[in-house]
């Protein structure tokens, strides 16, 4: 009897988790399903890019501006690289860089936010005032200026955007954490003599996770669009690295080409559509997640 009890509990727990996941997913509306499938496809393209892409990332395989055909499904770009391959590698580079930036910004902003909510005092005052000043400048303008100072490189791009974005994350993390740090269980952990790390990551963080996850989706979209815009402006990800924003800029002259050359859609629209589709998909999923976690709020 006593020997069986833990086993039984374990089985039930596992099943209920699986069951609840299945139930949640089956109740998802069409838009959320669409979003999840699109995101999954992008992730597959990004992770397995070298195996999926027919040609190399910066490999010159044909003549410039070749129309789509059996050899090059989407045609070639201005120096004869395969557009389809560059689109697939672009998924890896653009999404990868945006993801790392968002992750870094959440690591910095989230930790600082929870920490200041716990500590309060002069640290909180100091950081909050600095963050207020940062929030007063639009991200794109600030990023442009800092890129001019430090020079255009991927590392600089990630660090600058992560720093600017972490101020937004900090605000949310601090505001939500303020409601949690006054709870009895946090007090109990403090009295128990737990360290700061334990209190932040084991007591507070799990309880502010749902709004942070939603915010992660939205911040990722924002960072992703900003990186694309910066690359499009020629100050973000630099060639020959394949990236959707700069691909639009490189092939923009093609929209004036006669339609005969590009039967359905002019070439510059492929990377632009790739960007738009991903952000729309994420927004759909985030919308649904918001509905699930907060029932009432259906606003932005």
């Amino acid at each position: 009897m006593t020997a069986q009890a833990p086993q039984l509990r374990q089985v039930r727990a596992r099943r209920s988790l699986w069951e609840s996941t299945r139930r949640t997913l089956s109740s998802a509306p069409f838009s959320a399903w669409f979003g999840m499938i699109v995101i999954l496809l992008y992730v597959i393209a990004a992770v397995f890019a070298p195996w999926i892409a027919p040609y190399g990332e910066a490999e010159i395989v044909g003549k410039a501006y070749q129309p789509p055909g059996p050899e090059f499904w989407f045609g070639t770009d201005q120096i004869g690289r395969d557009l389809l391959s560059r689109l697939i590698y672009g998924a890896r580079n653009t999404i990868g860089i945006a993801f790392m930036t968002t992750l870094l910004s959440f690591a910095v902003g989230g930790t600082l936010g929870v920490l200041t909510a716990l500590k309060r005092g002069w640290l909180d005052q100091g950081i909050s005032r600095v963050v207020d000043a940062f929030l007063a400048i639009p991200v794109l303008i600030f990023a442009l200026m800092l890129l001019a100072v430090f020079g255009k490189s991927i590392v600089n791009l990630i660090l600058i955007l992560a720093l600017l974005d972490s101020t937004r994350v900090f605000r949310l993390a601090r505001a939500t954490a303020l409601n949690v740090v006054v709870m009895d269980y946090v007090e109990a952990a403090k009295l128990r003599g737990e360290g700061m790390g334990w209190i932040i990551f084991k007591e507070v963080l799990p309880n502010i996770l749902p709004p942070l996850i939603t915010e992660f989706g939205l911040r990722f979209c924002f960072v992703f669009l900003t990186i694309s815009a910066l690359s499009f402006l020629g100050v973000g990800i630099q060639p020959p690295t394949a990236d959707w924003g700069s691909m639009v800029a490189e092939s923009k002259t093609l929209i004036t080409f006669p339609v005969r050359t590009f039967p359905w859609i002019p070439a510059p629209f492929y990377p632009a559509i790739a960007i738009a589709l991903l952000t729309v998909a994420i927004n759909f999923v985030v919308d649904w997640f918001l509905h699930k976690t907060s029932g009432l709020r259906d606003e932005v």
Partner: protein
Amino acid sequence: MHPVLRTVLQRLGLGVLTLFVVSVVIFASLEMLPGGFAEAILGQGATPETVAAFNREIGLDRPATVRYVEWIGNIFRGDFGYSYAGLGGSIKRSVTDLIAPRLYNTFFLAMMTAIVAVPLSLILGILAALYRNSWYDRIVNSVTLTTIATPEFFIAYLLMFFFAIRNKWFYSLSTVSDTTDFIEHIYRAALPAITLMLVIVAHMMRMTRAALINLLASPYMEMAQLKGVPRREAIIKHALPNAWAPIATVIAFNLAYLVVGVVVVEVVYVYPGIGQLMVDSVSSRDMPVVQACALIFAATYIFLNLLADIISIVTNPRLLHPK
């Protein structure tokens, strides 16, 4: 002192303080570079003499605080210094001369967008809030969500493709100069303005809708309904006085957004505005121009947000009629 006046003065003070901090940050960004800016521009191989000469030429050999005070003082007199592009040559190009015509063009574009976008999105947003969950609301919601998630340059190229290349209704490049007359200017700036309008209307409409739904769900609206006030009267007498603050916030927020949105759109249409100038200067690392542009953008942004704050304070019924 009247509470309204006190709060407004507080906000004004805070705005000036923010502007000061931002100007320091913009100024200091140049100082943060390891090894100095001269080395970054001239390359690793530059001799110490060249670096020193370059620093003397652009005045970087003096203490930062002195230069900051001088920089800010000059800006108040409308002097942003000289562009690096003409340094060393016989013609020095003043940043102010470079920026002034472009600033006019950018404000022209922004005004043109705002005049159409603000009333349009307010009407659409209010209708969506009043007829919540109707077919109109749902369609408008998904259309605006898609517009928000789409990069601006994509919308810009789509419009250019359909309205300037497929159908030659507009020019695909919006080149304007000092000699362009007013009507021609409007015509040439139409496509960039429409692009911005689509983006702004989407944002603004969603925010107006959200703000109004929040308002309509408040207890005093329910009370008005329960005591039998007609819906029209309830909205005009009870909801509207409280709606000015959120609506002002929405407008100011989106005008501030517009200020940033112009950068990408100007580059797409090669419209000679300040955004395009900033991007060009970032590429050539022409720091006086970049700093001047950043300061102008930031100041506009701060000013608009401040304006929204003040409007919402001044129209707040609770502050206007203190107990």
